[in-house]
């Protein structure tokens, strides 16, 4: 086993173990922190694959954005350090079943799909190439989906502003 493999298994173990801890712990803040480690593990795997851009975006979006948001909502809603009540057995079973079904679906796809090696030369995952691909309008360009996603974000922004602008009802 080469050093590269060892690093991969370490990262995979970090991701999986902390994901498992995130769903089994009964302290909600710890769950958020374990989720954070799981996401960092995934970013580590991207780094291991030398997709540095994707890894950095993973950290910016998930670690710097979403986990911080989750932690903020915990701060604003929860009592400090209190344990959540234990879930009913039926719920636990159902959740395990749902997770297993999802895993089975993904694995089925992976096993059934035969990966054909492409003859084309792989595009270097540099930022410049990613940028030209994203905004490319010729074949293989992602201009339309990129713009659609930006419309979605714009809609979300405007929605936020509308919610924030909602004036309080007059109390007189």
């Amino acid at each position: 086993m080469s050093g590269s493999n060892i690093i991969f298994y370490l990262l995979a173990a970090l991701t999986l173990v902390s994901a498992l801890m995130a769903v089994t712990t009964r302290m909600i803040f710890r769950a958020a922190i374990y989720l954070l480690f799981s996401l960092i593990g995934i970013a580590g795997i991207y780094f291991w694959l030398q997709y540095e851009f994707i890894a950095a975006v993973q950290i910016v979006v998930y670690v710097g954005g979403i986990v911080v948001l989750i932690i903020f909502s915990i701060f604003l809603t929860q009592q400090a350090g209190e344990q959540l009540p234990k879930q009913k057995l039926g719920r636990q079973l159902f959740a395990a079943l749902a997770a297993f079904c999802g895993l089975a679906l993904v694995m089925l796809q992976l096993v059934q799909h035969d990966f054909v090696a492409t003859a084309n030369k792989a595009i270097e995952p540099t930022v410049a190439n990613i940028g030209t691909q994203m905004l490319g309008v010729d074949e293989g360009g992602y201009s339309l989906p990129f713009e659609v996603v930006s419309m979605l974000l714009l809609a979300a922004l405007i929605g936020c502003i509308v919610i924030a602008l909602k004036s309080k009802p007059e109390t007189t």
Partner: protein
Amino acid sequence: MLLTSAFLIPCSLFKLQKMWSLTDISSAIHNWLNQTFNPTWALIIEMVIAGIAVIGLFAVLGLVLVLMERRVAAWMQIRLGPNRVGPFGLMQSMADTLKLLVKEGMTPDGADKFLFNLAPFIAMMVAMLLMAPIAFAKGFQLWDMNIGVLYISAVSSIMVISILMAGWASNNKYSLMGAMRSGAQIVSYELSAGLSILTIVVLTGSLNITDIINAQADGWWVFKGHIPVIISFVIFIIAVTAETNRAPFDLAEAESELTAGFHTEYSGMKFALFFLAEYINVFIVCAIGATLFLGGWMPFHIGHWEAFNHAMDYIPSSVWFFGKTFFLIFVIMWFRWTFPRLRIDQLLNLEWKYLLPISMFNLLLATAVAILGWHF
């Protein structure tokens, strides 16, 4: 492999004067290790050397910056500053470190012990990760990655997690309030810091730190890029002062309101780690600022004045880098000991009503300048 191609790459790019440089030393070590051991072991040994070097740099920086801060503070307040321990008080920070080392590191009873003890290490680890892409001298860089600048803004966003973690796990109202304030502050100021970094990325056309430095061979961006770069430089300095939680943006600590904010409950070495991480972060953001706006290790060059440029090349690149970085650190300390602390609403007003719109407009201006070629 993660670091194979990356560790201590000699950058071959610019024909500067042939002079004594750190590149020779690092490549000599690299070659010797590769001849003596097999590549995997050579890599592991190189990683260990890099780790020890980074930890050593941390220790030295901590000692120097704490002393520097106290001296600067004293002189700005018409005081003398530390002058009792050792000659001119130079051993003061050593004595402080010794005191912190032998103090008991307590964990409060009601705290979430695991997270409480983890938080200072996260702060330290983030600081260490941020050291990776910084070019300390010509060709002396741990990891010259493709996305250098993006990596830095990504990893520095983990910094807030350690503060939130410490604030929550302490089970103390002051800590929690400090953490909340700090979270709101860092999340909002990251935006304008990122946008002002983007100005330089737009002008250079690359995220790579080496490319950015090499683009400044005929003049630093702050001179070449004139108005938009100067505006973004000012915004960058303000935003990173806020991101590192230093006065006038030290609401997370706010001694007069929250005792010590998120690290109220910390003592001994765990407190020292937070304290050290603060100074390391100041160093890192100033190094980034020096790299982006003041040319990193690039000597002071003016256009085509060959003789002048040659003369400047005789000063070693590491001296240039550390000189610029410490100048920016001094400016940030100057801020700290001049301005009063902002209230939380003033803080958010400053970011959302002033810095963010200005930096967005400025980014457009910089794009126009880059496209039309109005920079020098």
